[in-house]
């Protein structure tokens, strides 16, 4: 194959794969935003927290090892971490959200900022702030098959991430569109009071939605942790998810994926082909510029719910 074309393809695939990783983080935001209208600033920290907990359950020298003298196998550690995330969701509802029903979105948003710092602090105290290599047995390195047959360099881990994301999105889409709870989640997102009036318990719904987004955070945490180790800068990927959300729409699960892919590919291509023209290093801000353009012309994003205005 033409080496230039090959290089282009590699850039695009690399971008797509990076995009999937962003999308996984963005997904957690979308869930909570969809169901409660809250922009959860703590989503990135939740990814970090989940990864830290998971690491601790299986690593020698963690709490479990020190107290009980053994560590859990990967599957048990994942199951336990899911339980931890559900408990976390319950705690958040019990001690934060419950008191903020029917408040302005900005107040809820500020509460999640506080939550982010609390969670980060607790994570630091419990698990320490050193970088931890997370290895749950996901394949590492380049795919030999693609390298041999097409001369393409693609990370296996990123392929796994892509497949996982696809499965996750399908499951979530079915959950939101077809189930009773999913419908109730969307109803709550539309109108808290009306949801109360038909007998939906906001507290239950919020625990459910925060649990689900905690589990999504765990998946994102696993992928990012396997890729670059579990470290506190993980909580900052939340910032990268923001342009993804603006592009895809805050309320659309498929939008989070497509937005992630566009951002991923866009920033790689921009870096490679536009970067040299302006002295490079545009990968870091390209996503935000793209988001800005979207805010000007299509504020609800590509797939966001149309802002309904009756005339």
């Amino acid at each position, binding site marked *: 194959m033409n080496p230039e074309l090959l290089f282009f393809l590699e850039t695009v695939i690399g971008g797509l794969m990076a995009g999937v990783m962003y999308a996984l983080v963005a997904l957690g935001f979308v869930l909570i935003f969809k169901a409660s209208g809250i922009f959860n600033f703590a989503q990135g920290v939740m990814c970090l927290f989940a990864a830290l907990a998971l690491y601790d359950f299986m690593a020698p020298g963690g709490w479990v090892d020190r107290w009980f003298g053994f560590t859990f196998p990967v599957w048990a550690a994942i199951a336990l971490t899911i339980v931890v995330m559900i408990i976390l969701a319950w705690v958040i509802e019990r001690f934060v959200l419950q008191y903020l*029903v*029917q408040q302005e979105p900005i107040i809820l948003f500020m509460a999640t900022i506080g939550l982010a710092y609390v969670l980060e602090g607790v994570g630091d105290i419990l698990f320490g702030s050193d970088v931890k290599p997370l290895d749950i047995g996901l394949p590492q390195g380049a795919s030999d098959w693609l390298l041999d047959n097409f001369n393409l360099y693609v990370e296996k881990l990123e392929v796994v991430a892509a497949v996982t994301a696809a499965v996750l999105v399908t499951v979530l889409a079915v959950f939101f569109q077809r189930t*009773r709870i999913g*419908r*109730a989640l*969307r*109803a709550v*997102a*539309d*109108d*808290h*009071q*009306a*949801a*109360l*009036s*038909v*007998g*939906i*318990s906001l507290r239950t719904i919020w625990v459910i939605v925060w649990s689900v987004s905690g589990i999504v955070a765990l998946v994102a945490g696993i992928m990012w942790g396997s890729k670059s180790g579990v470290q506190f800068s993980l909580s900052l990927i939340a910032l990268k998810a923001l342009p993804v959300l603006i592009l895809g729409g805050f309320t659309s699960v498929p939008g989070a994926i497509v937005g992630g892919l566009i951002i991923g590919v866009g920033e790689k291509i921009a870096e490679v082909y536009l970067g040299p023209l302006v002295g490079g290093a545009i990968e870091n801000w390209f996503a935000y510029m793209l988001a800005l353009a979207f805010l000007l012309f299509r504020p609800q994003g590509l797939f966001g*719910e149309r802002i*309904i205005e*009756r005339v």
Partner: protein
Amino acid sequence: MPDPEPAPNGALLRVNNIEVIYDHVILVLKGVSLEVPEEGVVALLGANGAGKSTTLKSISNLLGAERGVVTKGSITYQNENVHGLSPNELVNRGVVQVMEGRHCFEHLTVEENLLTGAYTRRDGRAAIQRDVELVYDYFPRLKERRKSQAGYTSGGEQQMLAVGRALMARPSLILLDEASMGLAPQLVEEIYDIVKKLNEKEKVTFLLAEQNTNMALRYSKYGYILENGRVVMDGNAASLLDNEDVKEFYLGVSGEERKSFRDVKHYRRRKRWLA
């Protein structure tokens, strides 16, 4: 004042002397008592800010979300104290409020709105689907719009949807708040006709909060008039419609000469029931 018509099946709902305070300081209800007989239609009348919505919300316990608290009195439903039960428990027991301003789920389709109304039910998909069809029988317009997002339907359709959604919970008591708000008179008439039918055929009891006194009294059997958080008058719908004061202050018909706005204070003081 004439005695209430003897209720055929006893009172379904009793509100005894409740007092409601918003935000710890604003006293909105100052002792409201009322009774709703089983399978009755009772109207709660009064001007803006009289406390109609607050009364309904104290019954359905949607007050909490607005920082309101029932500080005195009691509310019994089917002879059980229901004061302080969560809204979803009340819906479970058959008390559903249709809120003022309709409050449909805008981004859900009409049909999804109806299905959400059945959220608390556990009797299976088939039964719920039957009731969706039942609602469509009463509101054929909703059937035409079943696939459109509720936010794009007209005000009248949204009001019908709100009532239909409440029906989906199989309620015994619907608290209908200001169904006439912002609707053309003909549409209001249409909606109240259906309320009447639902009362007769589905045996649903209604407590209507209305500013449109004339309309509400024509469709109900008994009425209470609220003023400044107190019940100032109650009686059979027919007797209220006949009452000189109600005519004068709420129906806008009066045998006497036109009154100047300057005399309003004096004019207000002439209410016989406040004397």
